[in-house]
């Protein structure tokens, strides 16, 4: 227990320096946040136009769709802060700069995680929280204690699922010295896929996003519980498993990463 507290303290020490460094470039920082919010608003506008004539997408109306989207954006915001830099592990390995994470008396996974803290993620938080407020008013979502607790669990689960996948992708670099590319060609499009209710996809895709790469737990299953929507092919209680799925998936990812680390041989000179 004291060890955990020690690590948490250390984490904030390490990232604190990074945050101060980023704040020096105030203009760049603000532009990044504006860009993030603009990009997400762009997707929301696309959804609005899409439903302008059609009204519903797989029985989800515009507000429900927006809620689904914002839930994914919110947990992704935390993921950017904690794990987004894992995708570029390949650059560190190829340049030989990864070695510095191995010579300190702390867990290398933790050290690599605490290396970066991207405050640009504020854009994700601004966007998703504004959308939550707007949607809650528009379609009368009543936020009782139970629902808030459920939402928190869903967010934590979502962070762990997406973070776990980033850790998996990162681990590939230990074997193949490639990882960033996998993010852009697999995870980036897959994340886009989950901006829409999974019910619209072929059964096979739904099955994969539930049991293989559990993206469905990031937003679709929990949002279906909160908004009381049908999840064809799946029990309507499946959303309650989100935190559990997140923990299991992340723990597996962590061990795969550590396994990769154990067979890592430095590329440095």
């Amino acid at each position: 227990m004291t060890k955990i507290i020690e690590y948490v303290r250390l984490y904030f020490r390490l990232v604190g320096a990074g945050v101060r460094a980023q704040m020096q470039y105030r203009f760049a920082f603000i532009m990044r946040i504006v860009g993030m919010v603009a990009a997400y608003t762009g997707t929301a506008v696309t959804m609005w136009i899409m439903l302008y004539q059609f009204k519903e997408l797989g029985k989800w109306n515009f507000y429900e769709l927006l809620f689904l989207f914002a839930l994914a954006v919110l947990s992704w915001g935390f993921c950017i802060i904690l794990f987004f830099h894992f995708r570029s592990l390949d650059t560190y390995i190829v340049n030989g700069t990864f070695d510095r994470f191995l010579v300190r008396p702390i867990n290398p996974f933790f050290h690599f995680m605490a290396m970066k803290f991207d405050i640009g993620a504020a854009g994700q938080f601004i966007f998703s929280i504004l959308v939550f407020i707007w949607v809650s008013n528009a379609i009368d979502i009543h936020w009782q204690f139970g629902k808030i607790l459920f939402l928190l669990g869903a967010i934590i689960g979502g962070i762990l699922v997406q973070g776990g996948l980033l850790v998996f992708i990162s681990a590939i670099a230990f074997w193949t010295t490639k990882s960033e590319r996998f993010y852009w060609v697999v995870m980036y499009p897959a994340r886009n896929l989950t901006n829409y209710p999974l019910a619209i996809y072929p059964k096979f895709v739904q099955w994969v996003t539930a049991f293989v790469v559990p993206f469905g737990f990031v937003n679709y299953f929990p949002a279906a519980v909160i908004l009381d929507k049908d999840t064809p092919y799946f029990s309507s209680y499946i959303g309650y498993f989100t935190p559990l799925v997140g923990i299991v998936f992340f723990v597996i990812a962590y061990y795969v990463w550590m396994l990769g680390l154990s067979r890592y041989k430095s590329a440095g000179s």
Partner: protein
Amino acid sequence: MDTVKMYTAFTKKAFMRSAAYRFDVWTRLVSNIIFLLMWMSIWFALYAGKEEASGISLTAMLTYVVVSQFLTAVNGAGTPLWELQEKVRTGDIALELMRPFDVPLRYLFADFGSVAFYMLTALVPLYVLLFFFVDLSLPTSWMTWILFIISGFLGFLIRYCIELTFGLFTFWLIETGGIEDIFYFSVSLLSGSVIPLWFFPGWLQTFATYLPFQGIYFIPNAIFIEEISGKDVFISIGIQFFWVAVSYTILRFVWRKASNKVIVQGG
């Protein structure tokens, strides 16, 4: 004649470069397939069992999406914008300015090479199979095929000019982060790449028809599914020619300003 030879040499070199990095080239196909699956599912669900909406049949709409994803892949196969921007930031662009060729044309011809490789080895086989197995509508006459190819090519030129012009603003702005996101969003929406213009709210549709972006995806897609037909095809292609001319002129103008800027900054 020598000039043509020089530029086609860039095309050949880019083709061979793609062949050398074919793993990287083909991985892009994975992402294209996922987006294709996504947009086909979305439109299938939007129709919700209806045979047609606003006079567009479901088959025609799915074909629109498939053709659009094909063109998106073609348009995305060239040198990415950030590579050029990086050259501006690091100053490497100066080396290219010293050489006896025109940089915008050099990159355009190099893009032809990368696109050719990607199309021949990945895109065409995949999309031929797709049309084989999925119930999509093919043009009924060979004339439509030819007009579609011309229109798609003009769209490629429009996109190239607009994107490069935008990229050149790096010469003046250090940080383009936020503006870039807005730019790409506007292009993807107003070009009709994922939602055809006829499903837009009226005012937005009018707005979009006065902009060059519709020439990138909307016009070629609509020609392919023969939603634009007869005399209108030639009018649409005329509009595309107009926008190629305009965007090329603007590109030249901004390029001249930008290269002067480099010379002024020196060192």
